[in-house]
């Protein structure tokens, strides 16, 4: 078990490394005019040269990457080239907002998609048809468009929710809940429809398996067959989809935060990539990829726990 985790963590680190190299070199392409962008058009060539030296832009790319890497490994993500704010601290204030939404959406997707998927698989008939139609509608509207629709109707027209966020670390929980409700709904609808479809087909497939009939023949009640046996075997399919959805959501949340004017990582990412603010972009990319790797690891562990055959190999 420990070996498995270490192996996965090891390959996760390799992925992280590969992504850091790729991102760093991508940003290098546009780093030519950074000093001018920071100092403005009036800057003299001398001032520009000083700035470039200060940022280390006069160094060869490999040396710059190496110095970034050693700093990052030492826990120092650098400071923004444009705002001079330490990357670590600006991430620290924004991560809670983004991750609260993403994980709330994930948990809700897991619960709602399971309930809907199981209901559609077991009841079939009209319940199934409603779910199918709902899935088509849900799949047809991108998450951010759902966000726009929600904010237009529920916040602007009806005034039930705040149209823009009022959250900051000091605010009471109720303000957070009120501010984050619509964004979370916008984030989760695509996930719910996709997840429910997966759970539905996985449950239908499991219900046709021989062991289900045998369990019933042994006098095990329908509910126990469904929730303990069938759902357990159907869960890996759902978990895999959920982990893929998380990856999509980490991107989708950027647009959602823009719509709801939330002080999460989205605006930071948009601003930093717009300015080629290398330390900030590197910080954001590394953080999100690390989250993905961690969640994938957790999903693998859960799958192993659910399926003894996987555990053995």
């Amino acid at each position: 078990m420990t070996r498995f985790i270490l192996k996965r963590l090891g390959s996760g680190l390799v992925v992280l490394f590969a992504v850091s190299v790729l991102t760093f070199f991508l940003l290098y392409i546009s780093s030519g005019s950074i000093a001018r962008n920071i100092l403005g058009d009036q800057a003299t060539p001398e001032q520009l040269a000083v700035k470039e030296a200060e940022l280390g832009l006069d160094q060869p790319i490999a040396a710059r990457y190496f110095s970034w890497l050693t700093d990052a490994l030492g826990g120092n993500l650098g400071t923004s080239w444009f705002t001079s704010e330490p990357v670590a601290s600006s991430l620290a204030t924004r991560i809670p907002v983004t991750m609260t939404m993403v994980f709330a959406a994930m948990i809700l997707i897991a619960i709602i998609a399971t309930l809907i998927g199981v209901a559609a698989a077991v009841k079939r008939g009209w319940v199934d048809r409603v779910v199918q139609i709902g899935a088509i509608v849900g799949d047809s509207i991108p998450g951010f468009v759902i966000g726009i629709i929600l904010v237009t109707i529920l916040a602007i027209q009806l005034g039930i929710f705040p149209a823009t966020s009022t959250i900051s670390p000091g605010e009471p929980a109720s303000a957070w809940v009120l501010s984050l409700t619509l964004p979370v709904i916008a984030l989760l609808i695509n996930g719910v429809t996709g997840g429910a479809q997966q759970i539905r087909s996985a449950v239908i497939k499991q219900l046709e398996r021989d062991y289900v009939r045998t369990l019933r023949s042994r006098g095990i009640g329908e509910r126990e067959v469904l929730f303990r046996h069938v759902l357990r075997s159907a869960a890996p399919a759902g978990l895999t989809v959920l982990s893929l959805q998380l990856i999509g959501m980490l991107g989708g949340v950027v647009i959602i935060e823009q719509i709801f004017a939330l002080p999460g990582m989205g605006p930071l990412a948009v601003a930093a990539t717009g300015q080629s603010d290398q330390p900030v972009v590197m910080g954001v990319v590394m953080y999100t990829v690390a989250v993905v790797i961690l969640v994938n690891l957790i999903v693998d562990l859960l799958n192993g726990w659910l399926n003894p055959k996987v555990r053995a190999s």
Partner: protein
Amino acid sequence: MTESVETTALTPVPGATGQTGTVVRSTVLKRLFKNPLGIIALVILLGMALLALFADVLAPFDENFANISKTLASPDSVNLLGTDSSGRDVWSRLLFGAQLTLLSALLCAAVAIGIGLPAGLIAGYYAGKFEAVSNWIVSILMSLPGLIVLLTIRAAFGPSVWIAMIAFGVLISPSYFRLTRSAVQSVRNELYVDAARVSGLSDLRIITRHIFSVVRAPIIIQTAAIAGVAIAIQSGLEFLGLGDPAKATWGVMLSEGFKNVYLTPTLLFWPAFAMALTIGGLVLLGNAIRDALEDGEKIKHRRTRTPGTDPVTGRRPTAAPAAVRPSRKSVPAVDPGTEHHLVKVTNLGVGYPQADGSIKKVVDDVSFHVDRGEILGIVGESGSGKSQTAFSILGLLPDNARVVAGSIQFDGSYTVAPGEERVSQERLSKLRGKRISYIPQEPMSNLDPAFTIGYQLVTPMVRVLGISKAEARKRALKLLTDVGIVNPERTFNAYPHEVSGGMAQRVLIAGAISCEPALVIADEPTTALDVTVQADVLDLLRELQQRLNIGVILVTHNFGVVADLCDRVAVMQNGRLVEEGPVRDILRNPQEPYTQTLLASMLEGKEPMSTLVSPLQKEPVA
């Protein structure tokens, strides 16, 4: 060719037209056009494509022509859908937006297919190093959050829709790679591919001719989905204001509408509607193709059905339940007119409703009985209805099955009363496990792979007998010893995949007798086992049956097993009972020609009758 009624019955075909499609491929398109959803999807997508194609002609204004004196105007004869905050025509911008949106989705899909398809073909066909390296790249690409990467790409290469879509195509190419690779892997070792290889076709020819045809349809489905995602991503980027400001796109229009949401929320409506319509068309198209493919599969199955059975009974499934079913009060608990048996099946008929409203009978007018302490063999080929008969006694017929005639009594009480359409789950759930139990055919697939063997033995005892877990554990270990397992502790703690087929079947037998049932229904209990193990399992069954004095219904296609084990035998053909009686009589002197041919074919080349003497020392209860 007789693999049939049972399989077909389990997967009936809704809406099938009964055609016998051997060439499934060519009919997929036909089925797509028959499906209203498929037609709707094609009409939407075709319409969008035409609007985009002729945008230059159809649009009354240039995409950026701004009439400053007419901003945020309502629709009129000049501006069909009104104007935006700069006085630009919404309808014209919508058309040009369609052009850009569709092209960018196409570009993205083309890039993704261009990378994923060949890589998947090579990795699937040749495996080896290429596959290992590809898998690594795939796992990296798949852990990247798309939008964040696209933001970075934009920082590097500037705000170009095309570059963003190429990058997104690369990011999403693993989905084609994985799809193609697994499809290729599954056909790589198929006989026809081997045959092609042996006949000297080059790898390239094999890939393009045989393998490409397999992945074609899944790729179209995938492309519909990916084009939808590409549209969403592209619009998202534009909405964030990260696109080319000179281009009219749906994303830019949404962003523009959102800025004016307090003044004219309708500006939001049109781009959102266009987007939902297009992506919806793609989703519907994907679903329709998938349905068409699945129907094709079903028709292939259906083709193999045994011919000659009467398909129509005239009973309509929709009208039946309320009208036909008598009130339960009228059913007497014990039928006083007849003698008492452990199980009594009377004129049983089981059928499956078909798409045309008729009912396909798989069991017709079957009657027999079983008493405690005797073994009844039900013999017949696949599709004779023997398993369906057994499952109706257990009450474990598939959901769509209907009891169309007759009744079943267990120990004097009806589990299916005359006139009832379904087996009463309420009554049977009290009997299953406790009084009637089941030994399945295929040992491995009948144990839940996720739970230990011990758990699967203990739980039914705890639920059915109401004993404690510790008590049940003790009994389970005893049972495992009883069924001849040498190291019961180890088997108890093992998962199903850790034991052999023979051992798993012993476990299932232990499970079947764990709650001391009066009747055991064994469905081909030795068919899936090695020949050497078969005899052991049969011996075990006989020994347990005699010791516990239980009634057994043994479903089999093997007269050898019948001769070895049974007291009486019932022969079934095409859902009907052909002949029934004591084993000795039927084996020695079969009356029906069908029984004779069955016997002749099964005993061919064997020492006939020699095994008959030993199992029949006990007088059969006739």
